[in-house]
Structures are given as C-alpha cells and as structure tokens.
C-alpha cells in the first residue's frame, strides 16, 4: 500500500474525528510506526488492519467509512489538491467521467510507484455509465463511489450511483447522470493559488 493513500486516510480520520483517535489507532496497531510517510510503501495487511480497527472504533461499517473517505478526498479543504487534480480531467462532469479511464496513467505520471486500478467506462445509454474496475481490491469501489458523488457536487451535476457485481475480481459502478448542470458547482480556476 502506497504511503500517499495511508496518509490521505490519516488526514481523513484526523480531520473528521480528531487527532487523538488517530494516534490511539496507530498505537493500537502496534506496528512500530509512529508516523506514516507519504513516499514510503507499507504492508497491505497493515493497511487492512488499520481500516478494520478504524471501522471498529467508529462503530461504522468499513464500506460506509470508505465512502466517506472518498467524499473527503474531494470535498474537504485539506485535500483540495486531489480535487484540483481530478478537475483537470474535464471541463464538465461527463468529461471528468471520461478522464477516469486515464486516471491510473495520470497518477503514474506524477508518482510512478503509485499504482491505481484501471477503470473502464462503458456508456450504456444517454447519461448512463458502467464503470468497471477489474482486479481492483474490494475497498476501491466504495471509495470511488464517494469520490464520484462528491465530484458530481463539485461540478454541480445530479447523479445516482450504485455498486453492481462486486466480487473478488473487481467491482462495477452503475452511474446515472440525471442532470449535468443541476447546481452551479464549486467552480474551478486553472491557475493554482500561490502561497
């Protein structure tokens, strides 16, 4: 598991539930790690235990927690960077959806050792999409669901998303774009704010 993902999850827990719970979780993990480094790699099993422990401690199903994490990645100011990088994908929500096929490639351009699952976008009808993530770990689909929901808000689009056919070989998401411009959205300025 790439450290960037764990650090993003850490930011999610710290910003949503506070620093103390996170520190307790890491301590309970008892892995000899005080601080996760975003540019290191960590054992997948350790990451899985971290997720289980967090879900247990919050008394929340892991899936719901992961969806919240996906929403956090887009909607919270602490991860504005992620939102911006995703917004570069397209000028509207459909453009953004189409850019998801390039997501893993884009990510690798910036961080070569951060490997994300490939997403294949199939258009089933007007405004109806199937996102197929073959070979993705089961945690991927709920995170992506949260992320797609939050991005829809960001673009001002109205969508319905449901997970379909999740199994060991990957997962699929069915997405219906009900209205492309339902609200104003949050807007996006290409130029990065400095300072």
């Amino acid at each position, binding site marked *: 598991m790439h450290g960037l993902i764990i650090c993003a999850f850490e930011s999610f827990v710290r910003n949503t539930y506070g620093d103390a719970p996170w520190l307790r979780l890491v301590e309970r993990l008892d892995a000899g790690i005080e601080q996760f480094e*975003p540019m290191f790699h960590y054992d997948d099993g350790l990451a899985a235990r971290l997720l289980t422990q967090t879900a247990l401690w919050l008394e929340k199903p892991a899936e719901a927690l992961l969806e919240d994490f996906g929403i956090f990645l887009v909607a919270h100011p602490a991860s504005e960077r992620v939102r911006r*990088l995703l917004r*570069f994908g397209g*000028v509207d929500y459909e453009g953004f959806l189409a850019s998801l096929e390039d997501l893993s490639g884009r990510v690798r*351009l910036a961080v070569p050792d951060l490997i994300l699952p490939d997403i294949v976008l199939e258009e089933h009808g007007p405004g109806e999409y199937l996102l197929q993530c073959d070979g993705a770990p089961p945690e991927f689909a709920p995170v992506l669901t949260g992320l797609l929901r939050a991005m829809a808000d960001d673009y001002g689009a109205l969508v319905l998303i449901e997970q379909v056919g999740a199994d060991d070989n990957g997962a699929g998401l069915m997405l219906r774009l009900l209205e492309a411009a339902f609200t104003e959205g949050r807007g996006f300025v*290409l130029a*990065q704010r400095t300072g």
Partner: protein
Amino acid sequence: MQSEISVGLGTGALDILMPMHVVTDRDGTITHAGPVVCKIHPAVPVIGAGFFDLFEARRPRRVQSLEEISDRAGRKFHLRLRDPARTPLIGTAVRLEARQGVLVNLSFGIAVIDAVARFGLAGSDFAATDLTLEMLYLVEAKSAAMAESRKLNERLHGAKTVAEAEARSDTLTGLSNRRALDHVLERLIARKTPFTLMHLDLDFFKQVNDTLGHAAGDLVLTEVARILREETRGEDEVVRVGGDEFVIVFKGMTEKLRMLAIAGRMIQRLEEPVPFGEQHARVSASVGLVSSSQYAVPEAAQMMRDADTALYASKTRGRAQCTFFDATLTAGPEPRETEALESTRAPERSLPRSG
C-alpha cells in the same frame, strides 16, 4: 505546389479548433479573432485593430508584415502581446485563399502557466485536443509530489540531527563522546568503583593540520583512537572530548606508578610517525592523571578539572610528559576547549591566582 482540396470553414468552426487565432485582411487589419484572443485583450477592440498594434514581433525580428510571416508558412515565430506584462506568444501563419489575408494561430508556449493565472483562463478556453490542461495537471501533480518529498527530506534531516546529537560516539574515531563520558563517570561514582581519569592532549596536531591538511589530521586522529584502544582494556572507556583531546577512564585502577607506566607507553606509541602519502605525520601527547582514591568524595567535575590541571603541568614541563595530580599543582591560565565543563570551570578561572 500540389493541388489542394479546399475546405470551407466558418469562423465558428475556427473558434472551436483554434480558440486563439486571428484573421486579418490584406493590410493586416484584424477582421476576426478567436474567443481567447478577445479574452486576453479586454480593453482594446480587437476587430479593426492592426495586427502589429496588438502584437510585437520578436523572432524573426525584422518581420514587420504579415505577408513576410505567412511566407514562412508552417514555421514558428515569436511574438509579444502589447500588454503591461508583454506576454510572450508563439504563432504560425497561413495565407487565406486568393490572398484575401492571413490566418495566425497563437499559443502561449511555455509561458502558459503564467498566462493562465494572468488572464484567468479556464479549461474551456483551450481546444479539446490541446494538451495544455494535461501539462497544467502534470505541473501541479509534480509540485505536489515534490512538496511531499521535500517534507520527507526535512523530517529525515531533522531525525538525523537529533540522532547525531543523542549519539554517544564520535563519528570520526568511533570512540565514545562527551555525553557517554558524563554517563560513565556518574555511574562509577555512584557505585563507588575506584578509577583513574587520564586527560590526554595531542602535541603538534595543529602543525599536522596546517602543513599536511585536514585529511592527514583525520588520519592521525583515527590512528590515535586505534592506539588508545589497543593500550586499554575492554572495560576502560576511551573518549574523544574535543578536537585533539581525549579522556580515558581506567576502571578499578588507581595505582600511580602503573598508571604513569601506561601513560608513558601510550605517548611512546603515539609518537610513531603516521604515513600519509609520501610524508609522515608526527604528533606526541601530554597527559594529566587523577585517581578517584585521591578524594574523600569524588566528584566528576572536580576530577576533570584536576586532570586538566595535571595536563597543564605536563605541557609546561615540555611536550610528551605525564603528570599525576596533586594539590601543589596550579591550573592552566586559559580555559581549555572542553565544552561541557566550561560552565563549572569558568568561575574558578576568573579568580586571581598566585603562581
């Protein structure tokens, strides 16, 4: 010239394919401009203006007519926008059919990052096939990744500094350092283990550094460390307390004659020349000794001071001497550079003394 298929395109189509283009008539007056050209020229009416009133040719410099520019069809030329920032642009021009005028397509080139901020450009200001957005994405992703790397480096650097500060050994010689010495003395005194403190200072070390360089100096220090380790037992503590100053703690040994013999042998061995390239580095050493049995209640700082006094006596007797402390000796006139004890030693030194 090959015969060409003519494609009739309206300006609307041109705006989609090239949001930053300009069409001029034969005289170089602008008759149409893409939406982005109008956006970056908000104050001036673009249509009807002369091309060179809005743009300044930079390379090739002599080109002053669009005719000349379109003669270079397909080749790149450099312009500047006549705006306060003199925004650099690149362009290429083609002639319209029947010499009706010229079409110039423009781009910000590498200056696009500044231009995007300056003109508040959005994704929709670029042609769908334009890779500018991908480039901006990469620039932003790369700087984010760089920022993380930099943070990691800073953390590692901080951790290294802390680790070095907390380390108990000297990195050059591998001997113990000042911190370890304080710890050892404290423990021995607490357990009432008798011991002798030897303060050893190299003679002529400065000359070695000055004449043969610091590499030779470092080599000498490593050699000295090796000899001191060989001339002591495993349970003794050999400490480098300063540049060319060493302290050795002999555990369970207080016998004066035996200690002087050990010191004498050490000095003898330290005087053996150390080969450095084709030359030899030569040093010697002066030694001051003090034993815990000389005190009713030994105290580390006092013992260090007394060992220093004995060392000073050796130095005044000439080089390569060793002296055991006794109350008749007087301390040296100047503070020596052993940092940690400086604070305890300083007040005493400020007192006037009689020879």
